[in-house]
């Protein structure tokens, strides 16, 4: 019996927008087990990205508690959450979010640097191996602006996996890509996920894609349902 790696209890999130209180999440609870892959679905504006931000500790819930890897991140401060992120979490975003002033290789070594791993020679070896795995050997010194969207997302994948994170969050990783490229990225994502045994939280609008995950959560009107 595997352990729960993320547990969410009665989480709400509301924001003040134009002087109105807007409740985005209205009391959500669920658990995610170690090594699981889980898809989060829902209409646009349902609150998927908001939920992911909370799960990853990028933001704080209005109420309720979130426990991640045995730490109650909903009661931790910014700095402590950042530490957890650097140690155990990887991200892939819809709009890639690479650092524009760093080369592909440097973008990949960056998370190791942030972790305090200063052996740059070793870091680069690791990064090169990953870039090769995502099919970008020879493009190490290119800047993000010199890469196509698909190539940028592959760099982002390499960056996400380089620290062998326990959990990988992916927010519509293929939203900005054409079908063929998207397929490619998804294959890579699942391949690396299985290889490293990472827990995967994937936000997507694509039902086909969601099917490849072990579970699917659907966010609707601030509530979440497990789809069976």
């Amino acid at each position: 019996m595997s352990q729960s790696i993320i547990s969410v209890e009665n989480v709400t999130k509301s924001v003040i927008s134009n002087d109105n209180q807007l409740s985005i999440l209205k009391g959500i609870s669920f658990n995610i087990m170690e090594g699981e892959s889980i898809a989060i679905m829902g209409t646009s504006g349902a609150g998927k990205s908001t939920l992911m931000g909370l799960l990853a500790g990028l933001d704080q819930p209005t109420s309720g508690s979130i426990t991640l890897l045995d730490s109650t991140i909903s009661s931790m401060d910014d700095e402590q959450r950042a530490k957890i992120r650097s140690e155990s979490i990887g991200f892939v975003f819809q709009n890639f979010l690479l650092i524009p002033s760093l080369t592909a290789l440097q973008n990949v070594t960056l998370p190791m640097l942030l972790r305090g791993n200063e052996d740059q020679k070793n870091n680069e070896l690791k990064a090169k191996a990953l870039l090769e795995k995502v099919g970008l050997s020879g493009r190490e010194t290119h800047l993000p602006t010199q890469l196509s969207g698909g190539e940028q997302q592959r760099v982002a994948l390499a960056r996400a996996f380089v620290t062998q994170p326990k959990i990988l969050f992916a927010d519509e990783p293929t939203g900005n890509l054409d079908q063929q490229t998207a397929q490619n990225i998804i294959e890579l994502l699942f391949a690396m996920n299985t290889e490293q045994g990472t827990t995967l939280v994937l936000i997507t609008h694509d039902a086909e894609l969601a099917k490849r995950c072990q579970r699917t959560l659907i966010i609707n009107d601030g509530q979440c349902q497990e789809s069976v």
Partner: protein
Amino acid sequence: MKANKMIISWSWREIWSGQLWPVMVALTLIIACVVALSTLALRVEKVMTNQGKTLLAADLVLRSTNPISPSLINQAEEAGLTVSTQSRFQTMAFSDTKMQLVTVKSVESTYPLRGVLNLRDETEQIKHQVNPNELWVSARLLSILEAKVGETVAIGDAELTISGVIIDEPELAYNPFNSIPNLFIHSSNLEGTGAIQLGSRVRHRLFINGEPTTLAAFQSNYELQAGERWVDQNSESRAARLMDKAKQYLSLTILMVILMAAVTLILTCLHYVRNRSETVSMLKSMGSSRAWLRSWLTTQVLIMFVVAFVVGSSLGLLLEYLLRIPLVDILPKVLPSVGIQPFLFAIGVSLCIGLPALLIPLMRLLDAPAINVIQKQTVQYSKKSWWLLLLPITALVVFYGSNKLVWMVLAGLLILFIVLAGLSYGLLTLLAKLKWSAALSLALSRISRSPKNSMMQLAALSGSLMLVSLIWLVKSDLLGDWQQTLSPDAPNVFSINISPEQRASYLQDIDSLTLPRSDAFAIIRGRVTEINDIQTTDMAVYESAETRILRREVNFTWMDQLPEYNEVVAGQWSGEKTVSVEQNIADELGLKLGDKLTFEVNSQSFSATINSFRAVEWQSLKPNFVFIFSEDAIADLPATWMVSFRAEENQTDRVTQLARSYPTVTLLDLRTMANKIQSLLRQISWSLTGLATLGVMAGILLIFTLLRLSLNERKREITLYRTLGASKKRISHTLWAEYGLLGLSAGIVAAIAAEMILFALMRWGFELPAQLHPAMWFLLPLLAVLIVFASLSSVIKALLKPLR
């Protein structure tokens, strides 16, 4: 270790791609300015204090226009003080082939009482005193006269053999126009030169050394006679005051440069923060701690400071060298080293400005929330780092607290900024009322849609344009005024010290050499002692710093008719025992027509009534006088005569002939002096141009930064237009029209403002005639539009780049 290397190279790239480089350039400019100015100021100050007493050649000096009385010397010696006397005058020195106007210092063997006198004789030995029958000349004089040590030179009527060369001497004057070389003779040879005669201009000094208390007692017991004054280390020399003025002008220019650089810095940083907050959010989402981010930003700041410091210091030293060129004759050859003080000072100033300008926005950057990678949030920035503003404010208060000028300039700039903003905006709204092509009216409506933003931009743009043109025009107006003194047909040789017996034959000789000459003028030296029977020494104006005429001897003359180049502004030239007074002096002394003035010449007193006031152009190099008397008032007083004439470059032999036949007559040959002045002006203009260029660079950098930033802000909006299907042509036309209008109106407003400020500066600041600069009215708007277009074309490609 290698990780640091990566962070450094990353930071370096961040500086360039993040467009932080203007920060670096601005810092460099600030450091260059501060290093240059403080190095120069320190050098000059050090030279001055180093030489302190050396400069005086004694602890205390009594200067007098009359020979020092032997009884005074006795008194001093009885009081236990050491004394030595000196007489100095200007006369002609002749070698076999050449001649030169020289300053003769006739001294005793005890000279100098303080400081060093190093004289090198034929056998290369160094002597320290001047003995009877010796003649020591400066190396420069030796080369002008084309003479060698051991040869004979005529000094007035005396013939002396050159004993050697002066290596070091005390009493150096800080006067850049003092180009007359020195020589030393012993006081026993003074008589033989024939230079001392009634009415000739010989100045005397009594050097005194002794215990400070004895000195003070002696000084306070002695009652100064007319024409005498004490000089000690504390008395401020005219040269020092001049230097102060120059320093003030420099400081003002540099303050402007620093101000513009500081604004560039702040704007660039703010822009950087807006641009990079996404990167920081990304780094945070990947788990970077604040500490890590802080060190990342610190690395960038450090790199910028270090590069700016290295480049800025070198630039500053170069600039200091340029500024120093005109002073080369008056500064000692081996300059005192200034140590690291200017560099520390530069670091201090750049930190004072740079830390708040960089850190306040950068600290904000640290507050960019990680969640921004998913959902843009409005962020409450902490105001914690605002205390950094205390740094420049404290520095300003500490250094300039009592300097009204600086505060006035700062306040003036602020008001000006507001006025300029209003003016340019008004101009644009006016334009908007007229009918224009589609692109232009679209542009105009864009500008008026965000009035606050547009006004800021306009004010900053016209403000910096104005500063740029001010810095440049003040420079060229100053130089132009100096240049004007040298008109092409003005008399260029002045003969003074002509004795009454020589006068007739001297004038005849000039005429027979066919040199065009002026009339001869009598010169009688004397002073004003009473105004309407009130002693001038009892009047408040006697002590006034600006009005020096009552405290010194002036040249009097008499004429039948006033010279036609003097315009009579009040009264008329008639009456017995009357005098005509120059109008500015008359104003300062509060004189009216019909006032009675009493004068003293050689302790002989006489009076005259004022019959007229005259306007005099002192720069014209024509013989001019403050007081011109009717003949009956002073004609029977002992006088020497002066005459001026013009000699062309190829008529030097005639001048030489004249000089040789009348060795006691002093020739002021302005032909060489004019060349000297010309080359000095060239040098000064070099250094001022160097400085002005820095100012213009700072200004253009600021304008460029401003425009690029403003255009970059547009990026999102333009992308939107593109997506909505606006044609490239349409967008670029609107942009060109909008920014062209912006530049044009800023240029026009800047030209008007610059003209007004320049007028005030020239009139009241430098006290020169103000003039209009029609060329600027066209050039400044043109320059503005050019800079605008240059910045626009440097970004427009990127702005219109198709979306991916």
